[in-house]
């Protein structure tokens, strides 16, 4: 190779003789060139210094953003379990389907199919896709199977985002106990709301490095550990809940009532075993929900309890030694106090014993005892069993009811209050107040969560008084009482009926609230059941006819489900030809 090139050079002009070299250039030109080169190097050095030393941080951040990502670590909301560990509410992953409206460009039949899969109308979908924003939710909380079908359509501009949806296997049966959550997984009602802080998880996050395929290849830092919500074990027994709910539903239908509520308490522990309301809703699909359906009447509705309050007046009179169960009191059919007259709705003997007053639910007889009591004593009694104050059970919306201070009571008010008028309470308050009869004179707090340690009881009345009251209330369900329909085969039960006119705009109207509060078995109570039927419309409105049968059917099933041995023979049920109508 050398020889030809030399030859070529030899053939051309000699280097030293090149005419280009002969041109004389001004000396400044080379200096300018040198200076420019030098300046260029200085500029490069300055730039390098700028990048390396001054703006490093910014640049490193920019660089990191190319490969490092912050990922959210989702936390799962805690499950809600019943006392036996059965799932009552659980969260499962679903997806939200969203779109970038401008990028969605697809034939109409595909959109039609999409609308079908999302279960929305084509017009609605079209409207959403015509929106100006860059991000629009097409549908939230779509279950995974539907999502897969949507993604299979392969429409550009449609994306998904993981989220959780709450499922309630019991549906409407336990709706009011559990409540529900919003699409953001926040508790809105019931226990979901009350226990939001423990049920709700805390989303975590971490920094990772991703490769070009989007796989996470390295952890940079765990910014925050995700915390799953804690599971919540309720005191509710889902079997008893089902029993209570279905029987309530049947009773409401049979009596054509507007609404109703039922609550079942465990006497030994103070746990709420079941709580149901009608009308109700399905927490799994809450379209077109009305306020009436949402309302947890057991907690939030107050009503005048009527005769279910009489046992407290009588117990107080017994406790103060003013009467004994066999004391005979004058009971005229009408009694005038100041400007008002009170009376009983059914004729009875001119003198009744204290036991008979409870058995036949005589207003006059109860007032006779109340007249021997001071307002303050009655007020103390009512407050110590929980009236006039919200029950502390950790349930949202629990109301206090209305009980005016005793100093303002006029004699007629004291008289009506003794039989449950002029005072308002919620069903849960009434149910709890009967603890003093069921627990031989003691009061205990209620709980919606499974109790591991028994709470300390508080004595309100003596053991003796409680037993005497229980004996009287057993007479109520006997042949001469107001509620023979409350009898349960194989078990002795005790209870008290209540029937009250409803107050509308300060006036009593011809609408009724029928109630029954009972405990069983009477020899050693295990459960208290309180039922309330609002505006029964099928001709009957007395607590003994409307509410007592509901009590009986729920008590029978509940006692056998709890394996409570019977304390009476199976032929204990005796039905009179005509039960006594109670007084209002």
């Amino acid at each position, binding site marked *: 190779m050398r020889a030809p090139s030399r030859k070529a050079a030899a053939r051309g002009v000699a280097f030293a003789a090149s005419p280009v070299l002969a041109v004389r250039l001004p000396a400044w030109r080379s200096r300018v060139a040198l200076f420019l080169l030098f300046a260029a190097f200085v500029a490069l050095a300055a730039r390098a210094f700028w990048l390396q030393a001054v703006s490093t941080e910014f640049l490193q951040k920019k660089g990191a953003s190319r490969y490092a990502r912050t990922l959210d670590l989702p936390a*799962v909301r805690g*499950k809600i379990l019943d006392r036996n560990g*059965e*799932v*009552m509410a*659980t*969260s*499962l*992953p679903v997806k939200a389907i969203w779109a970038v409206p401008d990028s969605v460009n697809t034939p109409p039949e595909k959109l039609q199919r999409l609308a079908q899969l999302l279960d929305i109308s084509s017009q609605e979908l079209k409207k959403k896709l015509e929106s100006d924003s860059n991000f629009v939710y097409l549908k939230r909380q779509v279950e995974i199977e539907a999502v897969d079908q949507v993604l299979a359509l392969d429409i550009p501009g449609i994306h998904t985002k993981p989220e959780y949806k709450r*499922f309630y*296997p*019991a*549906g409407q*049966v336990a709706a009011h106990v559990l409540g529900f959550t919003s699409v953001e997984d926040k508790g809105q009602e019931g226990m979901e709301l009350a226990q939001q802080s423990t049920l709700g998880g805390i989303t975590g996050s971490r920094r990772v490095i991703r*490769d070009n395929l989007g*796989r*996470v*290849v*390295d*952890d940079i830092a765990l910014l925050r550990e995700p915390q799953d919500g804690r599971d919540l074990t309720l005191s509710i027994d*889902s*079997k008893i809940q*089902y029993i209570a709910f*279905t029987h309530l539903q049947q009773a409401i239908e049979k009596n054509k009532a507007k609404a109703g509520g039922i609550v079942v308490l465990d006497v030994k522990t103070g746990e709420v075993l079941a709580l149901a309301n009608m009308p109700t809703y399905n927490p799994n699909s809450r379209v077109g929900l009305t306020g009436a359906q949402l309302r947890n009447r057991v907690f939030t509705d107050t009503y005048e309890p009527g005769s279910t309050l009489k046992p407290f007046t009588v117990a107080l009179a017994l406790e103060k030694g003013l009467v004994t169960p066999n004391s005979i009191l004058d009971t005229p059919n009408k009694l005038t106090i100041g400007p008002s007259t009170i009376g009983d709705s059914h004729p009875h003997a001119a003198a009744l014993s204290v036991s008979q007053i409870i058995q036949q639910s005589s207003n006059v007889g109860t007032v006779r005892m109340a007249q021997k009591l001071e307002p303050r004593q009655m007020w103390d009694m009512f407050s110590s069993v929980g009236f006039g104050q919200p029950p502390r059970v950790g349930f949202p919306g629990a109301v206090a009811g209305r009980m005016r201070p005793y100093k303002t009571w006029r004699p007629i008010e004291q008289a009506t209050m003794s039989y449950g008028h002029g005072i308002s309470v919620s069903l849960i308050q009434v149910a709890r107040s009967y603890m003093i009869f069921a627990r031989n004179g003691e009061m205990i707090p209620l709980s919606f969560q499974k109790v591991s340690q028994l709470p300390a009881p508080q004595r309100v009345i003596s053991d003796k008084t409680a037993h005497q009251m229980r004996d009287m209330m057993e007479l109520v369900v006997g042949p001469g009482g107001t509620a023979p329909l409350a009898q*349960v*085969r*194989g*078990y002795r039960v005790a209870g008290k009926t209540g029937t009250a006119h409803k107050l509308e705009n300060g006036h009593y109207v011809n609408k009724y609230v029928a109630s029954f509060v009972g405990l069983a078995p009477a020899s050693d109570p295990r459960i208290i059941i309180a039922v309330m039927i609002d505006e029964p419309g099928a001709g009957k409105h007395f607590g003994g006819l409307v509410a007592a049968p509901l009590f009986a059917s729920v008590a*029978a*099933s509940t006692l*056998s489900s709890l394996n409570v*041995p*019977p304390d009476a023979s*199976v032929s204990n049920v005796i039905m009179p030809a005509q039960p006594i109508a109670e007084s209002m």
Partner: protein
Amino acid sequence: MSNRAIFSLVSLLMVCALLLVNSQFQARRLFIELERSQLRQKELETEWSQLQLDQSMLAKHARVDSLARTSLGMSSPGAGKTQYLTVGAK
């Protein structure tokens, strides 16, 4: 320093550098595997929740009750037909 020493140090450096690359690669590969396992764990947890829910749905009292009554023709025995046994009694 002799050329030989320099040469051997340089080649040692090269080997170390290659080993570093290799171990980094291994670390990432293992990490991806870990990620995958954690994902699988999450999936299994979800599946378990789903199965628990299915169980609850199938064992729902309303369903059991109606199946027992309608297709099996059962009814609850009531106190009259129940024999109660006491533990320890003869």
